[in-house]
């Protein structure tokens, strides 16, 4: 490469690396917080504040005791200073929980924040036909379209409400896919989760709209422990969207969420995520620790599809998984993970084939820039009884700059001889010839890179619902700003 070209490329990379987080701001809403630290009392306080029944308190305490005996995992290819769990505030809620009949009742400051994010609830309500359950610092502040959904028998509410109103469902399914003892972070979550979403789609119902929740971390030093439980009963269908943006903070914030999906016979769940937590500044100071456990179980002929666009967080540790328990069930995982500056991501999926004729597809695209590290870690396990199963995995990595790293750790375990598994992975940079081709046709280098990155991620972005696809593209642009026009 000519010296001049190298220089211009360096400049470009510098621009990319120096682009700042766009959504960094905080909202001043008075919060009702409890002192920091974690103890049995804190768990009891959280449970009491939520006015929870005794069985829920017992569930939390059991999880807390399990957590005490567990060690924080360190097998992932990430380096970070382990959070001090006694320095975290485990509960904070906007002081008054407004009961909203219309959006006008919303705190104007909060409204402004949503506008800055470009969410504009009223617009979404009217135009996008999306029911938005906004979670701000652990407590839901706005729930819409509830009535429309209720007509169909769909329950979509904060999980704290579900514990009060539908204890039989929560009791039956909570922890059934991700047991409290599953791992360090899931145990922590089970002990202290303050809120999250609950969704139940009755038999044979096709959810008429996309369900979505916006998560935000707002209070300084507050860890957010979301719990999502989504049950799709026999023959039902639902598409669920989850998106995150977080204000800029210099302190590391912990996010340890648990998402459980249950797809009964013939049900179909599509779960999409756009994640843009604060990634820390260019020197790697601050940023969110995103340690999430997401898992779904598929019964007979059911389908679960995970789509994620991960651009934020200083450290990501996340493996949305499918347990293909029923015969003929299908699991899918589509992911774009972008890391920049000093971000680290260790993400991937697990496909556990238990039933006969089960199928899974994995498409993972990683983009690493700056001094970041991107990892794909995946497991495909075909058990003895999973005859005629099929898996296809593809994980590609794109490197931008020579200071970043990209790694793949696929685990493939096959225990029967009628299944087919294919795995392929590539690592490369954007070809000079590709950029030259575009330049030659009058497309500037930045636009060319944007074009190529978009094309590279197309397989995954195509899986997103319309509204999210637009937002995801915006995020890619912001994350790789300077090179992506």
């Amino acid at each position: 490469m000519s010296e001049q070209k190298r220089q211009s490329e360096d400049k470009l990379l510098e621009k990319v690396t120096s682009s700042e987080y766009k959504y960094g701001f905080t909202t001043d809403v008075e919060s009702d917080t409890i002192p920091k630290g974690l103890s049995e009392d804190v768990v009891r306080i959280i449970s009491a504040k939520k006015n929870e029944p005794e069985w829920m308190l017992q569930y939390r305490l059991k999880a807390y005791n399990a957590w005490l005996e567990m060690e924080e995992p360190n097998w992932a290819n990430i380096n970070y200073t382990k959070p001090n769990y006694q320095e975290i505030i485990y509960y904070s809620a906007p002081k008054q929980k407004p009961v909203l009949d219309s959006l006008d009742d919303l705190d104007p400051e909060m409204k402004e924040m949503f506008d800055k994010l470009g969410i504009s609830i009223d617009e979404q309500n009217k135009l996008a036909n999306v029911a938005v359950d906004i979670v701000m610092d652990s407590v839901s502040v706005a729930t819409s379209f509830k009535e429309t959904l209720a007509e169909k028998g769909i329950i979509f509410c904060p999980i704290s409400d579900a514990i009060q109103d539908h204890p039989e469902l929560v009791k039956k399914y909570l922890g059934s896919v991700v047991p409290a003892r599953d791992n360090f972070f899931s145990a922590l979550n089970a002990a202290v989760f303050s809120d999250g979403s609950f969704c139940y789609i009755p038999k044979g119902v096709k959810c008429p709209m996309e369900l979505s929740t916006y998560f935000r971390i707002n209070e300084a030093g507050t860890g957010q422990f979301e719990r999502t439980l989504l049950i799709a009963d026999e023959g039902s269908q639902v598409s669920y969207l989850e998106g995150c943006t977080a204000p800029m903070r210099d302190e590391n914030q912990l996010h340890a969420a648990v998402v459980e999906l249950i797809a009964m016979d013939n049900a179909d769940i599509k779960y999409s995520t756009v994640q843009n937590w604060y990634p820390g500044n260019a020197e790697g100071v601050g940023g969110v620790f995103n340690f999430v456990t997401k898992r779904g179980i598929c019964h007979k002929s059911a389908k679960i599809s995970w789509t994620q666009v991960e651009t934020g967080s200083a450290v990501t540790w996340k493996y949305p998984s499918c347990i293909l328990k029923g015969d003929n069930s299908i699991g899918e995982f589509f992911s774009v993970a972008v890391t920049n500056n000093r971000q680290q991501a260790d993400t991937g999926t697990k496909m556990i084939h238990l039933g006969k004729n089960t199928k899974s597809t994995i498409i993972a695209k990683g983009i690493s820039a700056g001094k970041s590290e991107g990892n794909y870690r995946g497991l495909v396990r075909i058990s003895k009884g999973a005859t005629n199963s099929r898996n296809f995995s593809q994980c590609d990595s794109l490197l931008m700059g020579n200071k970043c790293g990209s790694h793949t750790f696929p685990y493939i375990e096959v225990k029967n001889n009628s299944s087919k598994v294919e795995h392929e992975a590539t690592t490369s940079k954007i070809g000079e010839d590709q950029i030259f081709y575009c330049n030659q046709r009058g497309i500037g280098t930045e636009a060319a890179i944007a074009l190529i990155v978009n094309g590279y991620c197309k397989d995954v972005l195509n899986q997103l619902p319309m509204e999210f696809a637009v937002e995801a593209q915006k995020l890619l642009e912001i994350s790789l700003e300077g090179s992506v026009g």
Partner: protein
Amino acid sequence: MGLIKNIKSYSEGIQISAEKREILTSFLSNGFPTTKDEEWKYTSLKKVIANEYSIENKGTIIDSSVIEKYSLGLKNKIIFSDGRLINSPSIKGVNINGFSEFESANTDSILQLNKALSKNGFTISVDKNTALENPIEILFFSTTVNGFSQYRNQISIGENSEVKFIERLQNLNNSASFVNHFTQINCAENTKVEYNKIQNNTAESQLIDTVNVYQEQDSTCNINTLIFGGSFIRNNLNFEQNGSNCESNMNGVSILNNNQLADNHTFVDHKSAHCRSNEMYKGVYLDNSKGVFNGKIMVRPDAQKIDAFQSNNNLLLSDTSSIDSKPQLEIYADDVKCSHGCTIGQLDDDALFYMRSRGIGIEEAKAVLTYAFASEAIENISVEQVKSLAKKLLAKKLNVDLDFSL
């Protein structure tokens, strides 16, 4: 009891240096790796080390008919009997000696044990500018019942030299022997080395084989591993490229049946720019056999313009066979082309039907397809005798009377 106890009581009766004693003490307190170690996640040594072994080798004289039986009939033969060097050819430009001490960088506990206990092995040095026409055949015979042996070998190839090796470990009884084999190959600038391993030992034999290859600028090193016999085989193959324009090639074929286990771990460390590596491992699993593959490619920062390709293809031909595969890429440089592919599947029913409808028996049809599957890796071997032996062993293993060397 078990191996750890055997080693302990053996070590009490021998004279070794303080350094080795220290290594041994630390080994004995830590023990062998378990499935909790990431590198041994899928392969358990539990059964292997539960057996009783005899560590002191007796060293019996073997007669020439035995040698003939297992040799490929090449001119240059290095022969060991229970670790004792009993024959070494004199070749111009090549120095062949018995065991010598040398340092190895790898700190894996199996190698530590090898370092502490080894008394046998070969040391070969090839002079500068030497191109050998005939390959060198290396045979290790063992007559000890339930022997646990350590071999420690070093090969140093001088600049601009070219040489080929064929290595075979052979038990002369049916006992459950266990060999901890280590070979270090130093390739100087502009050398070409091919090292073929024929792993077709007796049914109960067990082996941990480690090869460390250090390459300098412009060198090419090919390591071919053919796995047919033995109950437990673990291969660790490590390449380190220390100069530009190096090429490392690995080919592996495993055809396993009964309760055999073969674990292939490979690691290519691309430390310099403008290098290449190619890896192709094919596995065929019958009966209750189990395969493990772990291929790691590391590209260090600033090692630009690397082309690294890895493929691992597996055929599961029985209900009870299994495979665990973990192809890994760790890339710290951007201007590289690295890829890995892994497939696990079966023989194509349509192809089988096609052949059967033309009067070819099911076993033969399967064998032809299996051969076609494995041949890609076998064809990369340049020594004709090894190639034809591989084909013969393949036919034998698949229970057919076919000659693939057409």
